């Protein structure tokens, strides 16, 4: 009898200790207010949806998200939030970061805190070099700009290009990536047009007119995701650039899924290079998009921001399973390097050398369906693209 009681007590004690080890706390650092709120919501929904769709993969552990507002791209609020998530909430893993300056400002805190930090958007290429605990599940600007440069010269047969870019670091990154690949493949960039800062949507007419006057084969445009895209497409249509034989191309930021339907017929024929759009034809993506529409409404759509959060959570769940719920920063990084998955964006893994993402890049064209809705058709796939900025050792990446 006594033995039984002892055994039962021991069993209880063990299960109690297991229960306490089962919860993994993830600190989320996203701009839930201000101009970034739209992006934060997409990433947030991506994370939540992964947990909901893959509840069986998470078991027997549970993941608790502790959300903090990064407020703005100034850096200091995001940094204090990171600090408090580490010291007050004792989180096991950090995640989030929409704005690059915030990820840059948080880097010393992440390094000192020795916890894995999953970057789910911030795209400035060299960020992952700034802390040994950073892993990225979104993209770097080079992931789209470099393959686009090659594709423009080889597949679209362009000899000359004009680049218009929003004048802030992602824009300059994109310009450098495109130019390097395009000129390396025999093309020539004949004009580079800075088109104002990222803060407000400018009147694109003078910039586009200048591009039109140069008569290039392709006009490569980079603008930040959000409200710029609709204005770009409208100006392109209004100036008759298509009729003049100039193709509008760019990274997928200009055809962000959440903005695509609002662009109208002027968007038809746009050619972009990106790692994800909601119309990708694979089983995982169909399941993901259907679940998204069921969860958040038929008129909503996931986009490349949402997939950053979704795949980021997939990575976190992988790490939690590998480490059996006991998360240590260094072991978590080691586990992250072994991550491979079949994501809605296609095959997806973490480069063990750079802790950055390896994924396909898709060359897509906007087409109009019979129901009048716009969608994107994949023209070709560049498989397993590593961040070219680091692969080619372009400063400040290399």
């Amino acid at each position: 009898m006594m033995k039984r009681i002892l055994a039962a007590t021991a069993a209880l004690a063990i299960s109690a200790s297991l229960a306490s080890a089962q919860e993994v706390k993830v600190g989320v650092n996203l701009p839930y207010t201000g101009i970034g709120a739209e992006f934060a919501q997409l990433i947030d929904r991506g994370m939540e949806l992964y947990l909901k769709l893959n509840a069986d993969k998470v078991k027997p552990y549970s993941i608790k998200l502790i959300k903090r507002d990064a407020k703005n791209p100034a850096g200091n609020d995001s940094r204090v939030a990171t600090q408090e998530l580490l010291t007050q909430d004792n989180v096991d893993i950090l995640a989030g970061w929409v704005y690059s300056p915030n990820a840059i400002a948080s880097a010393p805190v992440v390094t000192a805190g020795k916890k894995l930090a999953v970057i789910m958007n911030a795209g400035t290429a060299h960020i992952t070099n700034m802390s040994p605990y950073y892993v990225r599940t979104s993209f770097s600007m080079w992931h789209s700009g470099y393959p686009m440069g090659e594709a423009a010269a080889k597949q679209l047969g362009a000899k000359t290009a004009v680049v218009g870019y929003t004048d802030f670091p992602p824009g300059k990154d994109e310009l450098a990536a495109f130019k390097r690949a395009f000129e390396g493949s025999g093309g020539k960039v004949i004009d580079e047009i800075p088109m104002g800062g990222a803060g407000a949507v400018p009147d694109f007419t003078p910039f586009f007119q200048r591009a039109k006057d140069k008569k290039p084969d392709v006009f490569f445009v980079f603008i930040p995701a959000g409200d710029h895209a609709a204005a770009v497409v409208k100006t392109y249509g209004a100036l008759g650039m298509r009729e003049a034989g100039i193709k509008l191309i760019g990274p997928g930021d200009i055809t962000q899924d959440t903005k695509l339907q609002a662009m109208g017929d002027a968007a038809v024929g746009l050619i972009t290079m990106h790692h994800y759009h909601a119309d990708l034809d694979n089983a995982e993506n169909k399941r993901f998009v259907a679940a998204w529409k069921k969860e958040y409404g038929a008129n909503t759509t996931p986009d490349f921001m949402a997939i950053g959060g979704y795949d980021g959570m997939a990575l976190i769940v992988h790490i939690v399973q590998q480490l059996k719920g006991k998360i240590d920063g260094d072991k978590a990084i080691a586990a992250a390097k072994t991550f491979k998955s079949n994501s809605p964006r296609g095959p997806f893994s973490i480069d063990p050398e750079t802790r950055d993402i390896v994924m396909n890049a898709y060359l897509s064209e906007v087409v109009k369906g019979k129901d009048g809705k716009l969608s994107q058709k994949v023209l070709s796939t560049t498989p397993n693209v590593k961040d070219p900025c680091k692969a080619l050792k372009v400063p400040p990446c290399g």
Partner: protein
Amino acid sequence: MSAPTVFDHPAARALSRRHRLRWWEPLPWILALAFYFMFPRYLGFGTELLIMVLFAISLDLALGYAGIVTLGHAAFFGAGAYTVGMLAHHGIWNEPISSLFIGAAVAAAIGLASGLVLLRTTGLTLLMLTLCTMALLEEAANLGHDWTGGFDGLTGISIPPLFGLFEFNPLFPKTQYLYVLGALLICFVFVRTLVYSPFGHSLTGIRENTLRMHAVGAPVRTRLVVCYTISAALAGIAGGIWAQANAYVNLSTLGLDRAATVLIILVLGGYGRLYGAFVGAVAYMALSHFLAKVYPTAWQLGLGFLLVTIALFARGGIIGLGETLMARLRPKLKPKPPS
């Protein structure tokens, strides 16, 4: 028995005692020290808060005392921050305290140069011109990418230990907090002495009635320029210390957001009052910080509600509200304070 002189008049005595230390004046400093010991995990936030107090005090000197309406005070904050940041980043100079002096000097030089031109104007024109000065500096910092890091900002600012002993720990910023508190105390004592000096009184005179100050022969414009320069230097110290505490600088230090926030804080606390900066910064930052923690998506609602309430019902800010209440509670003991 000597005959009563003019110095025995109650008004004269009140005036001669204005600058004396009041019993509650050490209180904010005791509270700040208590915060250090009681909330070691909140020191990152505490450091931000103290820097904001220092920045608001610098603005109070220009706006509250001299009546210089400016919406571009972040220009000097950013000048100080970038000076300290660039010196450290490019490996030229990174000793913390002397760096602050250099940052203050650069900010003061910009304040002097712009003040000489801008302070010929008043009112809305002045407001727009201060805003433009700040926007010009911000764009210069954006364009000078190789020196300033542009939009992504400057990182890798390594600050050696303070006095060779105390490390700047990014995770538990104890050193940063005490360092900022010390700098704030010194700057505050300086400002307090300044505003009770004849120079400070002449500033108040200019704010209240510029024509009359001209009429009594006060060098109005010189006084304003000197005040603006001192205020710029203090803002430069706040910016420099921000760069050191955070170990980075970016364009936000020169942004309209920062300039507007500090103005709101000062109006909220009560401008032209020495402790308005303290009360305003604590109210604004504590509220936004803790509300944002509990409601990450909806905290701005609560903050906006506070601001609307203060704007509608307490024109003198929180301190002004307190003064009105005190005056109502004991109407016979004290005459009403000048509004």
